[in-house]
């Protein structure tokens, strides 16, 4: 195989990798305005619920008892 063929192939592969990476990155941009932490999981009417990732929650499970104003 001639040397210029190897050079051309390596240049093409490098170019393809660069273009492919650029296309992937621009297609998966993260919104700079997205809330990072802590996440708002759900909110009952009119209120604001804030649970850290360490708190396990389930909207489907019936509670055994609940905290409330008494």
């Amino acid at each position: 195989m001639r040397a210029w063929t190897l050079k051309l192939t390596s240049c093409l592969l490098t170019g393809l990798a660069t273009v492919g990476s650029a296309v992937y990155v621009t297609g998966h941009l993260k919104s700079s305005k997205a809330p990072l932490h802590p996440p708002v999981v759900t909110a009952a009417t009119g209120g604001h619920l804030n649970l850290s990732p360490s708190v396990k929650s389930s909207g489907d499970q019936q509670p055994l008892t609940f905290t409330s104003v008494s």
Partner: protein
Amino acid sequence: MSPERLEFQALGTVCQLYAVDRDAQALAHGATWVLELHRRLTRFDPTSELSAFNASNGGWVRVSATLEDLLREALYAHEISGGLVHAGVLHALLAAGYTHSFSEGDRPNPRSTIVLDPLPPLPDVLAVAPGAAKLRPGYGIDLGGIAKGWLADRLAERLGENCVVNLGGDLFARGIGPDGEGWPIGFGGTTIYLRDQGAATSGTIKRRWGPDLHHLVDPRTGRPAKSNLQEVSVIAASGTDAEIYAKTALLLGRQSAEFYLEQHSPGWWLSP
């Protein structure tokens, strides 16, 4: 696994006990313990130990280990809340008309005018030593702000390694729960699983007896609090801490509450 359950009235509210691997008698003993402490710590009974302490005239008086612990807890609550959770609000509550327990069927008497001053810091009002305590003349202690969480924590220790003690919404969940995932607790419209954690709610929507008259006194004014929050629920390491954080957040108002709770709690619910 279905836990044993007991519901009863105490502390002016509904109390619930749940426990895995404990029988009904163990829960009944727990309820008896709560009722006994309620009898000793209520401010509405003039013969209670707390009423006797409130009637003391500024000197050192002997107090039981339980009352001493609770008074120390009140000082701790005052400290970690920046002075907002203040057990020395009895006279402010009376001045606002909260003279009767809601559970007695009588509504408190609305007062048309309330003339009160900001409260001095609690350590200027209350001093506690081993087996004794001293109260500044002209002031009284109301333990309603911290007693339920404290009692929930203590009773959970007595009930065993897998239980929930819920005293009117202030609760402590101990152990892995009935299915090993933690105890499913209703919290801010969803269900959370608590394991060796407490939760509590503070609010102004109940125990009201007139416009702007409710049980939550702001020590900065000596009057029922005016907050842009009506209800706050908080998760914490204990029921006592949850109750302190919830009350502090409510008194702070929404903006400061979120900042405060970010430093203290893994989860909270704020209702305007």
